[in-house]
């Protein structure tokens, strides 16, 4: 018989699940858990400076490792501060287990100090959630939370644990076994055969890869399919890295800020093979006009994605890796010389324009200079805005999980804590966070965490002293009435970073910016690399919001 408190049991179950690092902020309602955690020799607790930071650190760990990671918060404001990071994980299908403290059971519903309905509040932003009313339930709930987070389409799961449940002493026979993902759905062989037939019969097929390819670990299979069947391949924001950008079959990222040729190739497609993507509006523009000539094959682990936005001619519910493995032997080897020549011609006529790419003090040039100074082992995170799109367009991503960005929710403030999480999970890698001056201020307090943990995180700040993407939209679509998008006063980021204990480098004043940048990226430890970017530089091309992908401007 084993005897322990609910709090101790959670710690043991996390340890047994292989959790080595957790991020959180303590508070009254979760102190029993923290007390139990203080005795753990296996789990390193990283003290975030804001719960949203803790949530994104756990996400950063999960995005590089592919397995569920853990964040912690107390009740009330602790839990509300976590909400954004949980919602972000839901939209990007990132496995996460959030554990929150709650007021004691008897006080629930009394508007007790720091009480919010965490369970009710997180229903629509989690894959599933629990309010634990008896410590014995933890024996089922904790493993179930991990299993759910990692199974099928991954996602966030929240466990809300009242303080008295954490303190409750229970007796039990044995620990539940650590969990593994639930069995995958059996691939629909008839549908796969039909899909193979359609690929074999198509004249102008295009492969469209989404984040599901990364989640399923199927990048190499997707590349093999492309090579075997001669498929030009586009990637969503979430799938960048699935196929190396310099692969001859890559046609880069599609959608709102995709290259013109990419969207034009999709216009010509007679078959769209969609693997682990979900026809998001930023990727496909006006749904009715997307790929107007194409039949659709759609593979997804989540059956509710099939026929949600576009009706597929063949919809396959299954794990991307398994489906591709079954599909590959039935797909004929094709060179598709005519179609690929047409793709090449579109590419050379309508390439992505990257002006000033040789100048490290310009937007594309800075992205290029960072890439030149690093190899493919580095991890790249971003915040949200113009800088994010410039990196997505111009950075040479070559491997899955090299690129971490907030896709579905588009959360400013994601970049720095996610980079910290990536560096915690994989301390041997250099982690670069491309940020904007607006976004960086949303979780700037986590510079303190990066300094405390002495992590190899480099913030490359593209400072236009503006909410650039908003400024761009107002200029293009609101009659140049720019409102609330320019900062009247500039922040001295170098001083701020120094105050938090980071090294700093200012490319504005460097004699040789490329060399200064490369040296800063090579020095271990956290560093802010600052560069002023012209506010009048916009992200082009651009599909106007609500427009069709064929209607790009710029």
């Amino acid at each position, binding site marked *: 018989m084993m005897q322990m408190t609910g709090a101790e049991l959670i710690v043991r179950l996390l340890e047994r699940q292989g959790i080595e690092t957790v991020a959180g902020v303590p508070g009254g309602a979760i102190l029993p858990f923290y007390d139990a955690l203080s005795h753990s020799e296996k789990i390193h607790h990283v003290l975030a400076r804001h719960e949203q930071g803790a949530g994104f650190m756990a996400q950063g760990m999960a995005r590089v490792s592919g397995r569920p990671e853990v964040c912690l918060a107390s009740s009330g404001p602790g839990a509300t501060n976590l909400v954004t990071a949980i919602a972000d994980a839901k939209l990007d299908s990132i496995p996460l287990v959030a554990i929150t403290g709650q007021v004691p059971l008897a006080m629930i519903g009394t508007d007790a100090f720091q009480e919010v309905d965490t*369970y*009710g509040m997180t229903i629509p932003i989690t894959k599933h959630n629990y309010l634990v009313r008896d410590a014995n339930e933890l024996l089922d709930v904790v493993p179930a939370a991990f299993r759910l987070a990692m199974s099928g389409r991954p996602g966030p799961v929240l466990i809300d644990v009242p303080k008295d449940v954490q303190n409750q002493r229970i007796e039990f026979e044995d620990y539940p076994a650590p969990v593994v993902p639930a069995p995958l759905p059996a691939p629909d062989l008839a549908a796969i055969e039909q899909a193979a037939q359609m690929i074999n019969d198509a004249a102008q097929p295009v492969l469209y890869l989404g984040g599901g390819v990364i989640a399923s670990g199927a990048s190499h299979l997707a590349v093999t399919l492309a090579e075997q069947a001669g498929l030009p391949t586009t990637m969503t924001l979430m799938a960048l890295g699935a196929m190396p950008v310099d692969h001859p079959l890559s046609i880069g990222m599609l959608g709102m800020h995709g290259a013109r040729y990419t969207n034009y190739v999709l216009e010509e497609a007679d078959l769209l093979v969609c693997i682990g993507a979900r026809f998001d509006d930023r990727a496909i523009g006006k749904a*009715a006009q997307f790929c107007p000539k194409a039949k659709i094959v759609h593979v997804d682990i989540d059956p509710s994605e099939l026929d949600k936005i576009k*009706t597929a001619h063949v919809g396959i519910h299954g794990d991307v890796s398994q489906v591709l493995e079954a599909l590959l032997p039935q797909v004929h080897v094709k060179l598709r010389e005519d179609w690929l020549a047409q793709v090449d011609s579109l590419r050379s006529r309508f390439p992505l324009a990257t002006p000033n790419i040789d100048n490290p003090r310009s937007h594309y040039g800075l992205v290029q200079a960072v890439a030149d100074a690093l190899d493919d082992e580095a991890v790249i995170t971003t915040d949200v805005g113009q800088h994010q799109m410039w990196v997505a367009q111009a950075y040479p991503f070559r491997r899955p999980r090299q690129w971490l960005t907030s896709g579905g929710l588009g959360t400013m403030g994601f970049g720095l804590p996610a980079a910290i999480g990536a560096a915690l999970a994989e301390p041997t890698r250099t982690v670069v966070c491309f940020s904007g001056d607006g976004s960086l201020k949303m979780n700037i307090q986590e510079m303190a965490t990066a300094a405390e943990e002495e992590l190899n995180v480099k913030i490359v700040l593209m400072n236009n002293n503006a909410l650039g993407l908003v400024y761009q939209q107002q200029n293009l679509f609101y009659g140049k009435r720019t409102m609330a998008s320019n900062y009247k006063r500039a922040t001295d980021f170098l001083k701020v970073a120094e105050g938090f204990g980071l090294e700093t480098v200012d490319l504005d004043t460097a004699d040789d910016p490329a060399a200064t940048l490369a040296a800063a990226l090579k020095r271990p430890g956290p560093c802010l690399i600052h560069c002023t970017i012209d506010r009048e530089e916009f992200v082009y091309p651009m599909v106007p919001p609500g427009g069709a992908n064929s209607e790009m401007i710029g």
Partner: protein
Amino acid sequence: MSIVIDRPQASRIKVVLELEVNNHAGVMSHICGLFARRAFNVEGILCMPLADATRSRIWLLVFEDQRLEQMIKQVEKLEDVLSLQRHGAEHAVFERLEEFFR
């Protein structure tokens, strides 16, 4: 050709959904939240525990709508929903209840 799921078009054709769910506080919120945020009107709801009390049966009365298939898939995805069956309007469950709403 591929078609696009367009603006909802509710009809007056009734559909009865029968769900078997885990019986605990919160299941109703999970289910009703899915319908509410899509402004998908639920005309009638009925819920009672089953004999072993660990499970409940929920009956939902909705109108046929282009989005119903997607709605059903979303409901089936919920962890606490164990099964879902679809019946036509001829199902007796809500008809017999009507007596209590006169």
